[in-house]
């Protein structure tokens, strides 16, 4: 097979792609090329393939079935359907991440409905929709359920605007549904009746996650649903499901690979406890376990037999103490991902270090983040203990009330493979509690020792030095979150000038002003987005940025929380769709 020169040298192809393709008979018919390219999975690979030549661009776009859009305003539905005619699966992310923490007002946008209208016309065979931080109304859910007969998979994470009535529409009309995954959304939880809406002859469900809904569901309906859907492999129920009900479900679906339990507290008779234990023993395939709300030492042992193959244990809604965690972890030697609450304290984390040598990801959430009194959580000692025992650690999210530079330096020496390092010292601007120095050296150590670092969140008392370190060493950094840090514009400048792969930068409450903002002019076009709030930006600075970079969307909101009324929230992002057409009055597009 003759290799086409344009494939060997992409530059040549771009010089005269049409002439190269037209003047030479193609080595592959288009269908073959499409077939080959359809084997490409990741978005990055597909993007690269589409840049090789016109032939490849077209083959790729005809063969692409799944599309991921990290910022729903970076492209329009019309542009999307024009380029990709055969999409079956769409993943969309909407609001800036800080909207999770109430920094973005209601009715900001990211409404899915306008997309659905276009999809109904151009993607009638749409099968999958995965949304994060989008606004979704019941009307949209009903539209989705009625207009897309092949629809199979719905995942809503951190979305808002709908109620359980919308879920009823999905359950009623989506005959081929395989996945319903509802996570942590701000929704109107009216009732659990939606579960009753699955028809009696409906059997295709493989994934059901309603763990974050509060209202009670009819258990008989649930049991019948689980019984007739014999492909069910992921089941995450909510807190209203009791232990003995859980036991009955497990008996019906022992082949689950992921389980989210309901409430783990109940007065069980010895017989019921024995049954529960037996049911858990029958779950040989369990890889992920979550839920366990109100779990107590009393019934956790029933779980032990199911833990042998666990790779992901999510205890972030179970306020376990250190002893309980230690005992549980003794059965979880294969754990790769662990999420806990800081109720486990440093002692619990010591047990992590001792029992989980394969651990790659640890998230420690605060049980009392808004309590101003001093309550024991985790400290630098717990993190240290984990780093000594879990050398493969690459992802950490750690909320604590005290940290030292020395501890972080040791931690990253133990674990140089960090790709995600998110440290949140909960008191804004808090220094090293032993030396009283800024935490600059801690994050300096992180970026120096961890060449693979992709994501970093900093906290504590930080000067510009931290950002100099980041700009100098963090050459693979893609996402950076900064709060209450830095001394001057220089800090932000260092990052913008020094991090070639930076895609997302979110900053709040830092002394960075217009000079810093404008130092990243060309940079922003290679990034997905920039967020700045409660910094020293002025309207003039934003206007200047907008004027100099017409292909960026520069959106400004007045900062309601600021004392001086001069503070703004700025959201800057690249877009091929031009300025938003749906911006509410409080969003000013410059």
């Amino acid at each position, binding site marked *: 097979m003759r290799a086409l020169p344009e494939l060997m040298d992409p530059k040549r192809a771009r010089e005269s792609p049409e002439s190269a393709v037209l003047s030479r008979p193609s080595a592959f018919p288009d269908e073959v090329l499409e077939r080959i390219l359809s084997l490409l999975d990741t978005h990055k690979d597909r993007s690269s393939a589409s840049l090789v030549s016109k032939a490849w661009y077209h083959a790729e776009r005809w063969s692409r079935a799944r599309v991921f859009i990290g910022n729903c305003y970076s492209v329009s539905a019309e542009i999307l359907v024009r380029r990709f005619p055969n999409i079956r699966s769409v993943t969309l992310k909407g609001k800036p991440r800080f909207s999770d923490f109430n920094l973005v007002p209601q009715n900001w946008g990211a409404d899915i409905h306008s997309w659905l209208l276009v999809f109904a016309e151009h993607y009638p065979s749409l099968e999958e929709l995965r949304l994060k931080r989008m606004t979704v109304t019941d009307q949209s859910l009903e539209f989705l359920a009625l207009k897309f007969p092949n629809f199979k998979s719905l995942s809503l994470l951190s979305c808002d605007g709908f109620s359980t009535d919308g879920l009823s529409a999905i359950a009623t009309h989506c005959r081929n549904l395989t996945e319903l995954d509802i996570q942590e959304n701000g929704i109107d939880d009216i009732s659990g009746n939606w579960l009753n809406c699955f028809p009696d002859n409906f059997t295709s469900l493989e994934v059901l996650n309603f763990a974050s809904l509060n209202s009670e569901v009819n258990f008989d309906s649930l049991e019948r649903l689980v019984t007739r859907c014999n492909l069910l492999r992921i089941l995450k129920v909510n807190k209203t499901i009791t232990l003995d009900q859980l036991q009955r479900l497990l008996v019906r679906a022992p082949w689950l690979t992921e389980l989210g339990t309901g409430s783990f507290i109940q007065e069980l008779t010895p017989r019921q406890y024995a049954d529960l234990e037996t049911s858990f023993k029958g779950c040989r395939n369990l890889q992920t376990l979550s839920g366990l709300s109100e779990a107590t030492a009393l019934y956790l042992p029933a779980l032990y037999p199911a833990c042998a193959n666990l790779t992901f244990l999510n205890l972030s809604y179970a306020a376990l103490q250190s002893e309980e965690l230690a005992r549980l972890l003794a059965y979880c030697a294969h754990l790769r991902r662990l999420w806990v609450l800081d109720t486990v304290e440093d002692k619990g984390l010591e047990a992590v270090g001792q029992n989980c040598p394969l651990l790659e990801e640890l998230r420690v*959430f605060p049980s009392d*983040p808004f309590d101003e009194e001093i309550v024991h959580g985790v400290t630098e000692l717990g993190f*240290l203990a984990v780093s000594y025992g879990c050398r493969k650690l690459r992802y950490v999210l750690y909320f604590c009330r005290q940290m030292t530079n020395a501890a972080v330096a040791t931690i990253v020496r133990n674990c140089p493979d960090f790709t995600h390092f998110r440290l949140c010292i909960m008191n804004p601007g808090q220094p090293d509690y032993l030396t009283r120095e800024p935490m600059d050296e801690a994050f300096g150590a992180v970026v120096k020792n961890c060449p693979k670092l992709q994501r970093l969140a900093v906290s504590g008392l*930080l000067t510009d030095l931290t950002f100099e370190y980041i700009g100098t060493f963090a050459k693979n950094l893609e996402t950076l979150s900064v709060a209450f*840090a830095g001394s001057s514009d220089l800090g932000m400048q260092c990052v913008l000038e020094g991090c070639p792969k930076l895609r997302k930068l979110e900053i709040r*409450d830092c002394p960075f002003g217009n000079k810093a903002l404008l130092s990243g002019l060309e940079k922003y076009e290679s990034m997905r987005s920039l967020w700045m709030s409660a910094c020293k930006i002025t309207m003039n600075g934003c206007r200047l940025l907008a004027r100099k970079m017409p292909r960026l969307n520069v959106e400004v909101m007045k900062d309601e929380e600021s004392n001086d009324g001069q503070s703004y929230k700025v959201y800057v992002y690249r877009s091929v769709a031009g300025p938003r057409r749906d911006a509410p009055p409080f969003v000013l597009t410059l």
Partner: protein
Amino acid sequence: MSAPGRAGHSPEMVEYSGAMNLDETELTLGLPGGESRGKSGTKRGFPDTIDLSIGAKRRSLTGGGEAAKDPDIAVAERREDEVSGTISSKPPATKTQVVGWPPVRSFRKNVMTKSCKFVKVAVDGAPYLRKVDLEMYSSYQQLLAALEGMFSCFTIRKYLKERKLMDPANGGEYVPTYEDKDGDWMLVGDVPWKMFVESCKRLRLMKGSEAVGLAPRASASTCTSSSS
């Protein structure tokens, strides 16, 4: 292969060495670059105490300088200062409530409130508060045993009869007390267990000498139990 943290240091040890030098462990809220604010260990004047959200209604806040007539109230007020005296003086309320900080999704805010009955436990002389879940225990015996485990320098001596905790380090006795729904400080153990769980808002292990002014059934108007 692994040596946790510093060899020979348990978290409890660190906690207590911290107790010797409160300045070092003091956590303060401040703006970036700010110095640590406030002093610890000083008695607070009236204006400072009204911002505290420590307990329920503060009936004893009749004024810092006023010598309270009611010995119970005087003791309660002094006790409160001692508990809160180990915490740095807080900045005004508006500054402590920073929007969206710490960056925890609203979903996670409800984790603790939804679960059982967590109450804070303060120990005279310790700089940290702890939390226990009263629902985890079915008797005073279990609770006191758990407290002993938590503040591991104590041993329990005749806890059923005397309901006191001994601290072998300084030989002092600690009396478990609690604040009930009405804001009164009571001795632990006087009401039936379930009633105690129901009405207990926070616990405090008080130095034996301090508990002198606190009689069981401290306030007749709040006494609802008919037997102990």
